[in-house]
């Protein structure tokens, strides 16, 4: 396969990617274009839902502006959406062709958690134990705090990678073999006699213990060594614990005792050649891959049983679909252009899909930026991207690049170009891929604002960094005119607002720290943070629902009292009253929620929450609590939790209840390990207005921009090494036929946790695998910085911790020359407030100096900084009305309640008809019979042939299950009797059967509407006659009268409504009793 028709567009940050995508799509569809394609032939895949909304919106707008209305209308017929939405649509359209279940239910939960569940259900207790034992020998991924090792992590990682790379479970054992062989190659050859080594160690341990104990010089280091020897003895009692060997091989004492441990260190250092270590390691690797294999199989079964698919299945299914001849034919004839956005972030399996789509559409445009490939953890593979880029150029495709930057002011564009041309040069990026020209005009008003800022943080740890950064933001906001920015909407220069500032950090924990520090200074923060259920509004929702379910929940009641202001009392009075009356004093909320409790029997969980909010006027409470904007917005986040709960119940096909919702609340507020961080899931609303400073991770900042960006965490040092589950490939080039071929998973467990600096690490670093990882890591760190640096529109601040006169810039230093020299030189010695320069060096030797404003920021505790007093404002509400509301709709059959002011009619004449309707059975269901009689009288239209009348009667009697109870001809006879009566009384009247009537009724509380259907309305010259059929068994006149009285309000309502129809009055109202055979007059 070649890449003819495929264009890769390199779109550097801020280069107008969406503009280009829209342009290409419009050019293809616009009927005024050269070779327009049908809208249905467009496939446009975006990375996010937001991206999709933006792209679809722009395309529609342009089409309308160009007068292409039909095309704009048809846009929903095109495949425009996220990759998942596109796959879902393909699967739904072609499920039966592909032999899949048509109900494509996508599992909502985090796939990792499901994989783990499947794994644990499939592993036997013996396998479990074996893995435990092996892991214990290596203290695999040891967590000292909870004293547990973890083999589940690598097993899950292998399972996830296998799924994302379409690796069959059966292929995993071979990968275990390759992994083991690779790892063991890093060790010296095993010795022959393992038991001898054991013996030697035990012996040496004993003698060293004696020697060291007797020589104990009282120093802390020797004390620790002695304790270590004691622990080691215990640990070595059972199976070999390899970390103990490693630990002993590096044991330290005071200088005076050093000689006592020399021999022990030597003996322990032989662990690397211990044959049992080699066997154990091999066994561990195999056991882990085997567990992953079992888990993957079980996961497939689990999904099949539940008829659900996960995201990878969806992609996989779509991929398989595209091989099906019928689907290929159909799509091949339909698709004409495939546009892929954010192409660099696609996972290998997505890439395979896009290749296939290109094959069908024959024309594709893939827009992306290799420099911004930062979602490796989410499955993107930068190495693969590089290979694809090479393949496109070499096999007939074209490459294009967007070389203008519309986002940042010229100084920043130049600086970033200079910096990253050099930084990326050693990672195979050509100058023209990186360098962009500024296209945004620079207003003069920004001249006195240096493009760079340097915040030297005088801090000793992350929390203090956060305080210092927060103080910097506060300083910015105290004098907004000193940092003017260009308004994105109006393009006018204006003073800084909180929402113009974004602080980028590396981890979620840092996000919380910075947000906390800002919050403490009274600065609103837009940040994704948990803790929703711990807020006043979360507490209110939780307590109210608990109290609704159980009135005896005195704790919930007290909490509601407390957060709603103790019913207007002070807290002492409240508690004193509570002690006096344990049932609790009555409060406003009790009455309000009492009404909700009355309806709890019909409310769904989310409706119950809505009713709680409505009853308690939660929005007004929230507007009165501190930080009202956040409080009010969080109500929506709580409703989202309830919706999420119900969605999950639907997915799981389980029940959903208020108790279940409360449990969901508990689960959401519990902190769990997500990726590398322990986080809760009860996320609060993230404000999007310009009154809140944005704090987010570098990853989340992708695709966004702000006037002022503060880059933090620049000292981030953690790096991945070869001892992680890692995708590998044996194929240096990209194979479009099989993009995922020759991919495999390598896993080397680190065998000596928690000890790190051992010869094995050095050997691993020097290995090919280690070098590859290091290079990947280096590249990723540079790419992430590229994303950070290119977010700023007007002013870019580097927040750097400075300790003992040295900057802590381990991450920043990855921006280096080929020789490894840092490219950035920061004026860290400049005094506070000074205008200085940031120097950007280049390999060529030419440097650039960029003006920078330097601030020195201390980590003053927030408590000393008084937040400005809050003013609570809200939309004005009118004074309370004086009367209760009335129902809008009046149903005639319920007129007694709905319309009490209606004058009640009286009974009048009673006319027996010649006969009633004989019933052939003793018992009859009169409601069913009534429907049949009604049905017939409605259908017995004028001029129907007798045979048809009988046929209709028969059909209705059969359908009502009344055969043997009423003969069909009885219906016809009853209708005839009515006709005779009517013709005698109102000759020549026009019959209107089942006629709807509606009328507006004025009331002191506003207009009301009465509406219903009159069974039979006779229109005479003098006016209307209303006839209502009632089927009931009574045959005596007294019974008729008694029955008719029940219907007086209904007839009165009809008559009253009819009177309002201009033209005619009501001259009669009658109740027709077909079964008893009579007519009763109602005088309305």
């Amino acid at each position, binding site marked *: 396969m070649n890449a003819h028709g495929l264009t890769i567009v390199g779109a550097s940050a801020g280069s107008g990617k969406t503009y280009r995508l829209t342009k290409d799509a419009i050019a293809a569809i616009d009927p005024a274009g050269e070779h327009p394609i049908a809208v249905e032939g467009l496939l446009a895949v975006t990375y996010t839902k937001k991206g999709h909304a933006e792209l679809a919106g722009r395309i529609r707008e342009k089409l309308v502006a160009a007068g292409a209305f039909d095309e704009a209308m048809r846009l929903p017929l095109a495949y425009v959406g996220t990759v998942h939405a596109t796959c879902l649509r393909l699967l739904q359209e072609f499920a039966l062709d592909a032999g899949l279940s048509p109900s494509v239910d996508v599992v909502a939960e985090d796939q990792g958690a499901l994989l783990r569940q499947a794994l644990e259900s499939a592993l036997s207790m013996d396998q479990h134990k074996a893995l435990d034992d092996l892991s214990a020998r290596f203290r695999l991924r040891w967590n000292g705090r909870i004293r547990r090792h973890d083999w589940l992590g690598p097993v899950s990682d292998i399972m996830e990678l296998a799924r994302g790379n379409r690796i069959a479970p059966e292929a995993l054992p071979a990968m275990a073999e390759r992994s083991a062989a690779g790892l063991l190659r890093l060790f010296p050859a095993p010795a022959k006699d393992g038991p001898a080594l054991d013996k030697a160690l035990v012996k040496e341990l004993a003698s060293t213990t004696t020697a060291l104990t007797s020589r104990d010089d009282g120093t802390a280091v020797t004390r620790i060594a002695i304790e270590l020897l004691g622990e080691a003895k215990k640990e070595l009692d059972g199976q070999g614990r390899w970390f103990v060997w490693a630990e002993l091989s590096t044991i330290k004492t005071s200088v005076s005792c050093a000689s006592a441990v020399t021999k022990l260190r030597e003996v322990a250092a032989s662990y690397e050649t211990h044959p049992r270590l080699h066997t154990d390691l091999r066994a561990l690797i195999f056991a882990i891959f085997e567990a992953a294999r079992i888990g993957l199989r079980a996961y497939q079964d689990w999904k099949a049983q539940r008829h659900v698919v996960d995201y990878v299945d969806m992609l996989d299914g779509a991929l398989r679909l595209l091989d099906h001849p019928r689907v290929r034919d159909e799509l091949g004839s339909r698709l004409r252009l495939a546009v892929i956005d954010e192409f660099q972030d696609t996972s290998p399996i997505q890439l395979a899909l896009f290749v296939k789509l290109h094959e069908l559409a024959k024309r594709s445009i893939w827009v992306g930026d290799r420099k911004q490939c930062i979602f490796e953890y989410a499955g993107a593979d930068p190495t693969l991207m590089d290979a694809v880029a090479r393949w496109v150029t070499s096999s007939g495709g074209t490459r294009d690049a967007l070389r203008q930057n519309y986002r940042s002011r010229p100084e920043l564009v130049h600086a970033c170009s200079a910096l990253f041309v050099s930084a990326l040069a050693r990672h195979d990026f050509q100058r023209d891929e990186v360098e962009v020209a500024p296209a945004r005009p620079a207003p003069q008003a920004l001249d006195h604002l240096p493009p760079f800022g340097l915040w030297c943080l005088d801090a000793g740890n992350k929390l203090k960094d956060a305080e210092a950064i927060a103080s910097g933001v506060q300083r910015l906001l105290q004098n907004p005119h000193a940092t003017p920015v260009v308004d994105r909407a109006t393009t006018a220069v204006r003073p800084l607002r909180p929402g113009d500032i974004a602080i980028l950090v590396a981890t979620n924990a840092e996000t919380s720290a910075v947000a906390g520090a800002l919050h403490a200074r009274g600065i609103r923060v837009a940040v994704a943070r948990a803790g929703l259920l711990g807020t006043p509004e979360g507490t209110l929702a939780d307590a109210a629902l608990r109290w609704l379910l159980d009135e005896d929940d005195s704790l919930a009641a007290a909490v509601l009292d407390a957060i709603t202001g103790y019913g207007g009392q002070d807290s002492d009075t409240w508690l004193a009253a509570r002690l006096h009356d344990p049932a609790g004093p009555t409060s406003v909320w009790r009455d309000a929620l009492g009404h909700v409790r009355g309806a709890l029997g019909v409310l769904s969980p989310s409706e119950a929450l809505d009713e709680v909010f409505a009853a308690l006027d939660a929005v007004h409470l929230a507007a009165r609590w501190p930080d009202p904007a956040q409080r009010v917005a969080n109500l929506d986040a709580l409703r989202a939790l309830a919706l999420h709960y119900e969605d999950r119940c639907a997915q799981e*096909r389980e029940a959903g209840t208020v108790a279940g919702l409360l449990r969901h609340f508990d689960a959401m507020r519990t902190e769990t390990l997500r990726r590398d961080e322990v986080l809760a899931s009860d996320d609060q609303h993230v404000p999007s207005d310009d009154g809140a400073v944005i704090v987010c991770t570098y990853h989340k900042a992708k695709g966004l921009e702000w006037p002022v960006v503060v880059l933090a965490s620049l000292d981030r040092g953690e790096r991945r090494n070869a001892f992680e589950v890692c995708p590998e490939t044996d194929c240096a080039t990209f194979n479009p036929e099989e993009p995922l071929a020759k991919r495999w998973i390598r896993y080397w467990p680190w065998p000596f946790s928690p000890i790190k600096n051992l010869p094995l690490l050095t050997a691993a670093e020097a290995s090919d695998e280690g070098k590859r990882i290091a290079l990947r890591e280096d590249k990723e760190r540079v790419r992430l910085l590229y994303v950070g640096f290119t977010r700023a529109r007007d002013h870019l601040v580097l927040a750097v911790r400075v300790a003992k006169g040295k900057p802590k810039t381990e991450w920043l230093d990855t921006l280096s020359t080929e020789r490894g020299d840092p490219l950035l030189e920061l004026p860290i010695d400049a005094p506070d407030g000074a205008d200085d320069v940031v120097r950007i060096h280049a390999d060529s030797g030419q440097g650039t100096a960029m003006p920078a404003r330097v601030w020195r920021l201390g980590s003053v505790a927030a408590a000393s900084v008084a937040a400005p007093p809050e003013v609570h404002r809200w939309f004005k509400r009118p004074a309370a009305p004086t009367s209760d509301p009335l129902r809008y709709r009046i149903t005639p059959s319920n007129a007694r309640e709905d319309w009490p002011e209606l004058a009640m009619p009286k009974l009048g004449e009673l006319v027996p008809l010649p006969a009633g309707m004989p019933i052939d059975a003793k018992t009859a269901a009169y409601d069913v019979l009534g429907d049949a009689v009604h049905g017939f009288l409605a259908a017995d239209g004028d001029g129907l042939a007798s045979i048809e009348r009988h046929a209709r009667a028969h059909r209705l009697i059969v359908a009502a299950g009344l055969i043997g109870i009423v003969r069909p001809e009885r219906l016809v006879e009853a209708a005839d009797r009515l006709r005779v009566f009517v013709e005698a009384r109102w000759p020549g009247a026009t019959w209107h059967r089942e006629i709807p009537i509606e009328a507006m009724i004025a009331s002191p509380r506003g207009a009301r509407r009465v509406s219903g259907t009159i069974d039979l309305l006779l229109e005479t010259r003098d006016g209307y006659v209303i006839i209502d059929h009632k089927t009931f068994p009574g045959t005596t006149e007294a019974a008729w009268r008694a029955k008719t009285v029940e219907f007086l309000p209904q007839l009165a309502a009809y008559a009253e409504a009819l009177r309002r129809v201009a033209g005619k009055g009501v001259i009669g109202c009658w109740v027709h009793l077909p079964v008893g055979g009579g007519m009763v007059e109602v005088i309305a």
Partner: protein
Amino acid sequence: MKLLVGWGLSGPSFTPHTDATARVGEPTWGRSELLRDLELRLGLPREDALASVRVPRWYARIAKLPSPNAFYAKSFEVDPLGTAQMLLAWRDALIESGWNGLRIAGGGDRLDALAAIEGCSEIALPLGTADRLVRAGLNLRTSSSKTPLYDDIALVEPRALWSQRWQQLFSLLETSGTRIVEMRPDFPGAPTDTDLGRLQQRMRGETRRSSDKLPPRITGDGSLLLLRGETPAELAELTASLLASWRDDALVIRSLDSAPLEAALLRHHLPSQGRTGSSHWRPAMQVLPLALELAFEPRDPYRVLELLTLPVGPFRGFVGSMLAKAVSRQPGIGGQEWTRRKLGIADTLRQSETRKLTEAGSADAAALAEAHVAERMSRIEEWLEAPGAGKDGAPRATLLALALRIRTWLQQRLATGDPDVYGAAFAQAQALTDALSNETRATFSREDARHLLDTVVRAAHGHALSVECAGRMAHVAHPSAILAPTASVVFWGFVAGTERRPALVPWNHAELNALTTAGVVFPDSGKLLATESDAWRRGVLAARQRVVFVVPSKMKGAAMSPHPMWDEIRARLGLEDSAAIERVTRHAQSLLRSEGPVLSSIVTIRPLALPEGRGEWNLGHDLFTSEDDRGSSATALTTLVSCPLAWVLRERAGLRSGAIAKVAEGPLLNGRLSHRLVEDLFWENAFDLDEEAFGARTDAVLEALIRAEGATLLLPGGAFERAQLVQQIRGAMHELRRYLRSAGFRIASVEEPVQAQSAVGTLHGRLDLRLMDASGNDAVLDLKWGEVTYQDLLKSGSSVQLAAYAQALRSKMSDGRWPPAAYFALASGRVLTVDTRMKAPQTLDGPSLEATWNNVERTAVAVKKSLEQGRVFVAATKRALPLLKALDVSEADHATYFASTREAPCKYCEYPAICGVAWEGFQ
């Protein structure tokens, strides 16, 4: 009759008729109403076949056909019901488009396969909407009536876009004398010198290419407004305040999420517009899925809790609440707590029923009461205690019996209860009974049962959450229901995703060609989309004064973008320029900050402080006088000397959580299970067995305990935890046994009730283990899960509970000596003690329990004194003084008093929202 019929007119509509004083014979109908009326007039019985009946029938037809090569065969194998559902939907769409059910010449294998299923008529398929249209057409054609059924029908949507079957009906009606016309609403529009007028002008000229390229000038005169805000909550308040201030007629298009708007209207004293919610999750409808879940092992304690606390469920009220408490404490069914609570329930029921019957003069009160108790108890047994199905699945007959039982129960409820509450649930139980009766599978796994329930039975049920009130503002759910002009139109929830899209046609070109030849024609999707766009435009064109679009940034957590019509408006008005957009946009938050042009009145409101973290509460009266020495516990004593406020809230104000308490988990559950294990092993003398036999008993008893009292560990996701826990507990039991032997102790009693006299009254409690050595000397062993915490408590002289137990045991002893005492840490299997007499492998350095007790007593006395003065100190608010300082204990004496660390008491405290600790970051 003169009908107005449109696709969007089934619900609330806004037509020229809406404000008419009165009219007769001029209804406004949607498609379903028209069809039903036609049937009524043609004498056709009502047919409301549910999917739950039609899908299994269609499935039975497919299953009957031996067609391994059919295009759907593989899917049918994977998901029979789902495939049947999809094929039936295709079939219905074909029938509605004119298919007669016979083979289509040249239609290909897919259409042939459908024709084959359709031909399998020995299994009757109840009528769907398409079949009803066909039936009405046939009857209309053959009717002998000479009078037209209706005088006029005005169609809102173009006649050509109605389905083939509808078009056939219209033709037949026309033949019989009915006049069919297409309705063209008349909208005068806004003055052309307003922003809205200009937009309307542009919209009206939509069909031609815009000749005047220059966009009109948008002034921001308020006739066109885009209200932006963070969430519907604040926008609802803004919208309601605007509606309240406008005196003219307004129409609200409520496309999405009307709950916040309804609440806001109410608060602004505007009449309710009424709201109907549709949901799968109505309480009575959960009885069936919950009961079905509990028909399988392992039974999820959380599900048990849900069934017990379901507001209209079989156990609501006292019984449910009591059993729920048992399950929260010991998650499972049939454990110690469950049994105890059940006995309690029986006693209470017996007493109350006997009293009731006796008061009512029953001669046989005791026997009748007993029968009542037996009936209630048997319900517990039947619904909750009967063993569930295991790995092999549940036999069909079992599930059928269960469905029937629930149906009967719901039927009884329905007889006396509200149909709105029980009606839909009963229909579901009936549907499941039907489906199971038609099933061919002999057994069902839990997943099968869930899938069956989901595919066949589950349906949303509508419920009126609020009713329309007199004087309410007009409203519609979709702009297609707008056919008359009004002053203001508010698009509430003007967001993408609310537009309706035509269903995708699954047929390819060749198939469509063959279908067309056979007279089966689908409406053009593009034209259907254009009709939808027309409907949205009508919302704008209908306004005479202003149009307001309300767009929140987020709605129930999901990011929202404006409705696609906004793109069109931008294009028509040339609003590419952001400044122009800003002129018509108002942000709720800016309005609240009183920035920009005034739109609605903003007032300053009184802030509401959250409970402040006070250092001391002053209740002004003696909090001990009410003490009737009803007894206290060691835990209460610990609270008293750690945080007096927490003590008052719990022991005096009685603040406790209710039936939905947190289910025991983690260390708490682990500890409880281990306690119970030791208890059971003791009662069966297992500690005297040899190691191997002891191990075997430990395993067996623990397994049974987990099932009955720790069933959360059996749930999916619990196996890793369970495996590690079992290992840990097993190890701990061995260590305990080994320790007892090596230290020369035996267990004399478990859970023995004891009392201790303290300065603040009598403490009651139970000793986990009373040990006895060979000489008959007693010792206390208190079982705890963790290690570090209790080690620290002992080292710092803070182990109040252990000291209290030792004191309790001491008071039983004749010599008044302090007995030795220790904690046994189950997680590590270690004995923690400061007393060498415990003969533990290691003795910790720390004050004796006697000293601890004396210190505690001193603090308790001081706290008591403060409480007697009505002063209640708080442990850990920012303003709180260290307790001893607050109690005025001189610095020099601190060593002889007990003092906990500042945060320790808050760790498991339930009152931070009341004492204010929770809000210290919020003030």
